[in-house]
């Protein structure tokens, strides 16, 4: 029977995931409306935030949601080719790829973030996506940030770094130019393959994540390379490589010594 699914097993003691959904106004939000009109039952886990276009979703928002304790984040947009704004959903896909790569550096399950295409006629698909994602998050368990322990602190640090990275020019320009480089031809008229681009992206994302970690940690208090390595878990060699780079760019500056090691602080800080 249409709409007559058995009641969800959501007993009060069980873990009830909190999911934030960013839905595009034109397709997915309409799909959610259709699920409603069709009375398709689903878990009460999702909190919907309507955005005009999935492509307009700043990559830092899903990360912020995870940092605020969301157990899962769903991004939904029009199917490829359907975008109301010509190609916004392709932009969403690009940003999502970047986010997924960033999540690899964070002690959070990659699956907590998911991108789905739901059209205005796919009420049933909306129901399915919400139900499946809820089950998946139930299996994974609560966002460890909620425990407020050491691990949670560490993850928050990682998420802060990831957010910082997504705000930076390097990642933004990479996403902003990806279409040009991979479809229209770069400055030389060459088209880069998916593999080549992936490789470049992987490198830049790792760089930016580590650098963001460093910058955030020396925002107020000066620290040595060793201090930073200890706090972030990266090797001293890696940290130093990036410290040197950030120094060169005048983003961080040396600020006194601790024994033989220079300490660094964010430019304009302290």
């Amino acid at each position, binding site marked *: 029977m*249409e709409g007559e699914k058995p*009641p*969800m097993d*959501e007993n009060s003691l069980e873990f009830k995931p*909190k999911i*934030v959904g960013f839905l595009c*106004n*034109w*397709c997915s*939000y309409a799909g*959610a*409306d*259709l*699920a*409603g*009109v*069709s*009375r*398709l*039952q*689903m878990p*009460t886990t999702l*909190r*919907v*935030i*309507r*955005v*005009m*276009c999935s*492509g*307009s979703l*700043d*990559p830092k*928002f899903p990360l*912020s*949601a995870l940092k*605020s*304790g*969301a157990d899962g984040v769903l991004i939904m947009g*029009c*199917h490829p*080719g*359907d975008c*109301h*704004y*010509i190609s*916004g959903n392709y*932009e969403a896909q690009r940003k999502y790829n970047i986010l997924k790569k960033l999540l690899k550096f964070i002690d959070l399950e990659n699956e907590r973030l998911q991108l789905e295409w739901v*059209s*205005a*006629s*796919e*009420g*049933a*698909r909306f129901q399915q996506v919400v139900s499946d994602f809820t089950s998946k998050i139930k299996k994974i368990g609560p966002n460890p940030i909620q425990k407020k322990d050491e691990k949670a602190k560490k993850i928050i640090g990682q998420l802060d770094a990831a957010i910082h990275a997504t*705000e930076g020019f390097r990642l*933004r*320009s990479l*996403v*902003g130019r990806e279409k040009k480089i991979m479809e229209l031809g770069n400055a030389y008229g060459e088209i880069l393959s998916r593999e080549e681009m992936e490789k470049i992206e992987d490198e830049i994302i790792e760089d930016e994540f580590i650098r963001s970690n460093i910058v955030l940690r020396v925002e107020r208090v000066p620290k040595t390379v060793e201090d930073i390595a200890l706090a972030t878990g990266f090797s001293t060699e890696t940290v130093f490589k990036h410290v040197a780079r950030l120094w060169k760019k005048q983003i961080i500056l040396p600020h006194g010594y601790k024994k033989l090691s220079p300490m660094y602080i964010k430019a304009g800080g302290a």
Partner: protein
Amino acid sequence: MGKKVGAVMVLGAGISGMQTSLDLAESGFKVYLVEKKSSIGGVMASLDKTFPTNDCAMCTIAPTLVGTGRHHNIEILTVSDIEKVEGEAGDFSVTVIKHPRYIDEEKCTGCGLCSQYCPIEAISEFERGVSLRNATFVPFPQAVPLVYRIDRTKCIGCGLCEQYCKANAVNYSDEEEKKVLNVGSIVLSPGFETFDPSVKSEYGYGRFSNVVTSIQFERILSASGPYAGHVLRPSDGKHPMKIAWIQCVGSRDEQVGKGYCSAVCCTYATKEAIIAKEHTAGTDCTIFYMDMRTYGKGFEEYYNIAKDEYGVNYIKCRIPHIEEIPETKDLKIIYRDEKGEQKEEIFNLVVLSVGMEPSEDFKEIADKFGIELNEYGFCDTNYFSPLKTSRPGVFVGGSFSSPKDIPDAVAQASGVASKASGSISSERNSLVTVKEYPEEIKIGDEPRIGVFCCHCGINIGGIVDVPAVTEFAKTLPNVVHTEHNLYTCSQDTQDKIKDAIKEHNLNRVIVASCTPRTHEPLFQNTIREAGLNPYLFDLTSTREHVSWVHKNDPKKATEKAKHMVAMAVEKVRRNKLVHRSSVESEKAALIIGGGIAGMTAALDLADQGFLAYIIEKENVLGGNLRNIYHLLSEGDPQKELAAFIEKVEKNPNIEVFINATLESLSGYIGNFIAKVKQGDECKELKAGAIIVATGAKEFKPVGQYLYGQDPRVMTQLEFDKKLHDEGFSGKNIVMIQCVGSREKGREYCSRICCTEAIKNALVVKELNPDANVYVLYRDIRTYGFREKIYREAREKGVLFLRYTTDKKPLVDKDGDDLKVTVHNANIKKDIVIRPDVVVLSAATVPYEENGELGQVIKVPLTAQSFFLEAHMKIKPVDFATAGIFLCGTCHSPKFIDETISQASGAASRATTLMSKKELFTEGVSAVVDEVRCAGCGLCEENCAYDAIKVDEETGIAEVNEVLCMGCGACSCICPSNVPYLRQFEPKQLIAMVDKALEAA
């Protein structure tokens, strides 16, 4: 000159009627949109996806549906028929009968309780009989108007719906109503019906449960269809793994009185096969066809993808009959394959690709409106005035004049709006209303929010504890007033909202009820009437997103509703005043190209009272039409052309620049500045709109089939001229089709060459009935009524020999003689012909200059260098850049009548913007924080609408609000979120996220 009325009646509210209505209403005319069904939307609303882009049909049509439903100058009369028509062009009186709906349109809120409790079921027309509906119903969930209706033929009068309707909208004593509409013009776009295949008993439709029509199969494919998008067959609900399509059911079939081709079935069957395969991998799809007619823009490429990438089987064979296997209900088809061998195959499901036929009421419509129908029962039109009926003041749109696909229908629909308003343009803005609002009240810095929670009858209140949500809302920051109402959308609650704004000095309003997609404008209007800026509002959907989807868990549903109200509060507290800015438009259009497309657009715009500048690169108007000397019954092309040119040259509103090219274009919609070079002179022209009508040309196949080497080998246009200049006295002619079309490097079909070849063949037969004309073809694509001349040619003895691309015809010389060798694919034999002339049906190709022009006006091209429109289906004459339009063969190859329709369409789109006193910006647009902008230009690169640019002098990004569509792409690509989207600012979204995650 008699009286003229600034209103138009549009009959039929499918995609065509809706587009016509929107264009007319946007150009300053009152529109009465009359529809016999209970909702607007027509056939397109019931399609799953649309070719050749596989866009979701509902996603593409929904903005048109909602826009039509909301437009304050379009009055929709549903469940209505025409009784009589009096008067004449400029001043008609149309009497409309509004049949009883038994549910009050004013009172019904569309909540659907009546239908939920209705015990009577009936076959759903919208679902084409594949599923059921209640006697109290709306045809589909997104119906416009969203007003229920009682099907009196089924209703048993049990009274339950009245009992459950909390809005007291049920009225069993509803009666027929008559309404007399006084209008200046009439547009008829009553659509079409699909052929009922039960008359072709050999296919077993109606007897064999697994034989369905193509439109039924659309519903089966649809995610909102009877099986929620699972492809299942009717006999046992199993996935059919082998599906066959039979083409031309009710088309190209004299036996059932349908001699014409329905023009869309080849491509839609291809689409259905692709989608079936996408639904269930491994599905075997076979299409049995006569000629594959994928003639439209992007269709041939789509067909190739279906064949080569999806593995859809195409078999050229007319299927005589279908047998059912009683045990399995599978279906047996016997056919002949390419090698001519008889084969037998079993299918789990057979789809009949049914044609488009005249609706039953076409005759009645013709009688009432006093117009002529053609021999097939469609509206009769003239080749050079395809939008006019035989009666002045009455125009035709959509499939009423001939079967056509959606983009052609939409282009024509805009075109007919131009024609219908052109003759009454003096009455523009005479009957439309402009809503007057009180001055906006000054609001304090401190937000004062009022929250209105809706029960929606028992739709929300039956699940969600609405009073508890209302109580909770009181505790939220800045909330100073709350209430809950049975129906927040009812007129009395609207008044209550206005009173509350005054009494409690509210400066923000939240409604917790249904979806903003349909109801936001209603509430925005209400608060504006009370003097509040309409953007100080938010609507959160506690019905679609809560009560309707969590009915088994009232407690958690209530909790979620509370969260949603809290999130809305966080958003609306931060909402700022938005005042849409406006610009005036120049009342002139620049038309690039002086062929039949450009001239038509110019004449239409001149009729509308605007100036039209035509720039033509040649030293004479006329374009390609100058090279066409023969048409059949359609008239004398050179005479028609001369008449066009004379009209253009005599028109005081049209200025023609010959030998002229566009040097540069700056500005934007409403205010373009074009530099036009004419000889050594450079002129500056100001225009509100630009129309690109640069045409295309015939390919010169030098080096192929001895073309360029032997004067007896020529193209169709050259042959046409030769026939005109010298006549023809030879004996044998060979015509070769698809020269330069449908092959590697130029994959598309040139659409016109089959008809052109047959036309020239018939001209030859006229001059010399004994001449032998051989047409060597791959598929004959005489779509629509053009099928008639194909039949006529065969009857007159023109010989059609099919070849395949692996064995192309060979043209060489045998001494002085031309010799053509062709392997006939039908009889598997080589045939040798010694013709007097060989005529090549060469492709229609785009001009090389398109690339350069595209860069000057900043519009995109397709892979084949034709111009690329904003949306293949729904915006066929608009470019994505606002204010620039296209028409004619620079869009894709097409016939003269199609070009004329499309050119009027482009003129209509330009009229909608130039006729406005002011062009308003989108409310939700990007804003730049100038202080923080570093001028990196990423925003500029990522804007699809050319709406944000880094100023060369200041180095700071600037938004052109007129062009901004409010997608937000610039905001999230900017390293500092310098551009932000109004009402979707980062701090608003972050605050909402945090609220969403708080414990309730």
